[in-house]
């Protein structure tokens, strides 16, 4: 009896989970990046392949617990025909194939993000994370970022990056903002660096997540395909304000973007 109940419970649970996945009760937001479809396809393929294994595994477990309760001696014991060999072969072949397929396809998706060099014409933006805010820096008309001086960083004077506009000519026209704006359909190259702890740059819709590592500068690049306003959240534990460390990314059409940049430059 408990075996049969167990079987029923397992089947119900499995079906409920399958329903939630198939019906997209909780689901990823629509992707807005060029590389995103690769990742989504990869997730869906994994959901399919691993999902079948999951359902098969749970159902086999349910079936066996249903069938092989104590017969009080009315049924003779059997063991699985062929012993462990078919199981081992099954595991090696099925999981082996799954692994091969996933890592083959997966490496393409990963490669599309990380192994392709950034487009030389990319819009370059410098991103700094700190407890508990992101700041963004555009190079200005000269196209050059001025050097950073950690000792000059000051919340009070709003010198978030530690720029020395008096001595570094490249810094003079740098535009520092608290929100990120990028042009649509244009490759964007971000350079991530942190002023204090580990943080992370995560935009779900862009399918981009990359940690900031203090001490090193990490480049990431992507191209957004839709305009709109999306959330940037910090996903690496960085201290008490971690939960509230966020900013917004606006994907703008080229004219809007140019306007926005002008406004920001005027506000410096």
């Amino acid at each position: 009896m408990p075996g049969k109940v167990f079987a029923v419970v397992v089947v119900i649970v499995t079906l409920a989970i399958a329903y939630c996945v198939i019906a997209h009760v909780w689901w990823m937001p629509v992707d807005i990046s060029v590389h995103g479809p690769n990742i989504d396809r990869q997730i869906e393929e994994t959901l399919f392949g691993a999902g079948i294994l999951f359902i098969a595994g749970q159902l086999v477990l349910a079936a066996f617990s249903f069938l092989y309760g104590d017969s009080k001696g009315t049924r003779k014991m059997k063991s699985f025909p062929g012993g462990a060999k078919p199981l081992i072969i099954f595991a090696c072949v099925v999981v082996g194939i799954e692994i091969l397929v996933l890592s083959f396809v997966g490496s393409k998706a990963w490669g599309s993000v990380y192994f392709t060099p950034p487009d030389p014409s990319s819009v370059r933006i410098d991103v700094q994370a700190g407890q508990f805010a992101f700041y963004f820096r555009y190079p200005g008309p000269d196209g050059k970022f001025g050097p950073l001086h950690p000792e000059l960083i000051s919340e009070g004077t709003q010198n978030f990056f530690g720029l020395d506009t008096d001595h570094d000519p490249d810094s003079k026209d740098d535009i520092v903002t608290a929100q990120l704006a990028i042009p649509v359909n244009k490759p964007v190259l971000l350079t991530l660096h942190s002023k204090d702890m580990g943080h992370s740059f995560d935009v779900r819709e862009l399918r981009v997540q990359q940690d900031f590592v203090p001490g090193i500068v990490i480049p990431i690049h992507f191209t957004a395909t839709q305009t709109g306003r999306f959330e940037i959240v910090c996903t690496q534990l960085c201290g008490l304000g971690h939960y509230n460390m966020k900013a917004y990314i606006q994907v703008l059409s080229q004219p809007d973007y140019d306007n926005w940049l002008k406004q920001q430059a005027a506000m410096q």
Partner: protein
Amino acid sequence: MHDMTAHAAAHHAPPQGFIRKYVFSVDHKVIGIQYTTLGLVSAFIGMALSWAMRIHLAWPAASIPFLGTLSPNGAPGGVPTPEYYLSLMTMHGTIMAFFLLTAAPMAGYGNFMLPIHVGAADMAFPRLNMASFWVTFVGFVLACATFFIPDGPPLSGWTAYAPLSAVGPVAGPGQGWGQNLWGLSIALFCVASLLGALNFIVTTIDLRTKGMTLSRLPLATWAWFINAWVSLLAFAVLLPTCLLLVLDRLGGTSFFIPGGLVVNDKVLPHSGGSPLLFQHLFWFFGHPEVYIIILPAFGIVAHVMPTFTRKPLVGGWKVITYAMAAIGGLSFVVWGHHMFVSGMSPYMAMVFSVPTLIITIPSVIAVLVFAFSLYGANMRFSTPMLFCLGFISLFISGGIGGFFLAQPAVDSYLHATSFVVGHFHFTMGLSAVFAAFAGFYYWFPKMWGRMMNETLGKIHFWLSFVLVYCVFMTLHLMGLTGSVRRYSQFVADFMVPLTPTNKFITIAALLLGATQFIFLFNVIWSRFKGPKAADNPWHATTLEWDTTSPPPFDNFGGRQMTVYHGPMEYDGDAFVMQTSTEKSIAGT
């Protein structure tokens, strides 16, 4: 026979006096019970912490009873501050992962059972064994002490990533003495685990009784033995990592802290270190650690299941043992899968992804062995057996999540979401806990000489099983939306709509916790009022069932055990004890 027992009793009297007998005892059975009790206490502390977290997540303004008294700073009026939420989370992870699941299934049951399984009178180094427990205990006290210092416990998570964990009080509340105590506590835990592992290895190799060949070792003992090797290497890396972390904090070094960090507009005096070095060292330990948690679980299930299916495991002792050994070995080459988006070279991500996927093969083999051993059985659905079945189901669910996370491209979306939280609660949190429950219900008669109540046990199982799915499968699915972990409140725009889901999870989690009190009641009640246990209540074959319940001080009352059979000689009602001279019935 009788004569020998009397003879032994006369000359081999157990130590007298409460302290020597129950506190500073060198008897492996007492130490095993001490570890198990420590695990139980940790489980309920950890659970209380998870309750506080869950309540705060669902009702951010709710006042949580007792919390305001425990920490007037951290939870003024009982409402945790964001930093105190992180402290609760850190200590929840630390206590659960280290002091419950590394301690109880391995050091707890292992200490009690391993010497008996191999037919020895005690561990190879009994005094070292006692030292292991007391060092662990001091570590535990230090960890708990962080709640009582003004700043409270550290907030950098159980992974204690540098520089947050390394730069000292400037990083936030709890990062002062809280983090120091945490580092020392874990360092002590490492020392104790190393001593324990050494003891397990030597005992298994050296103290096996006549006839106890490797092929006749009970599978739980195999698991503990393999696991001892994994612990030996893994904790030997965490120990220096903790020491270096403490040096960075107290000695002014910069192993894990790069130059030019600015906190509160001040440049920190450190230079030249690398946060990634910490991550590499931590995960070189951390990944094996999660298998250190699951291998004893495998062993317990492999040990308990044949007793109730009344037939040997498919593939005998070999397949499951080789699978466990393969998992143990491979666990040392996959650590980078925790660091796919950490800034490590993307090529390294590919390099770590492949062995991570490969390690699923022995895991799948193990699961298949468990599942297909049910085929054609005459299962007795006692509570331990139900927990074994639950274990298989939960481990499949948790392990499947591994397929997703193991691929860098997929992980770059799912990393640090509640999908990961769901994954590791299914694998580590709950399937390992279910195996621990199976072991507990199974061995309770041997450890305390009384039977546990079956009805309460079954209620405990059914409620736990269903509620675990409600809590942690929902967390998985919620992770698909990108819901971020380690957030004390859901203020991000896209997470606000998840609040109802969150409330559902919290309610289920509260019920799940409440269910554990049925277990606690059962334990305490059965300990004093349960029916006396027979020597071999489950009709099992291994040596622990070949002695009284509980066993005498020298385990076998002076008998020299000789082993003739493997541990899985079952055929329905018929079974052959390992020490029996009868003919084998299962061909092992």
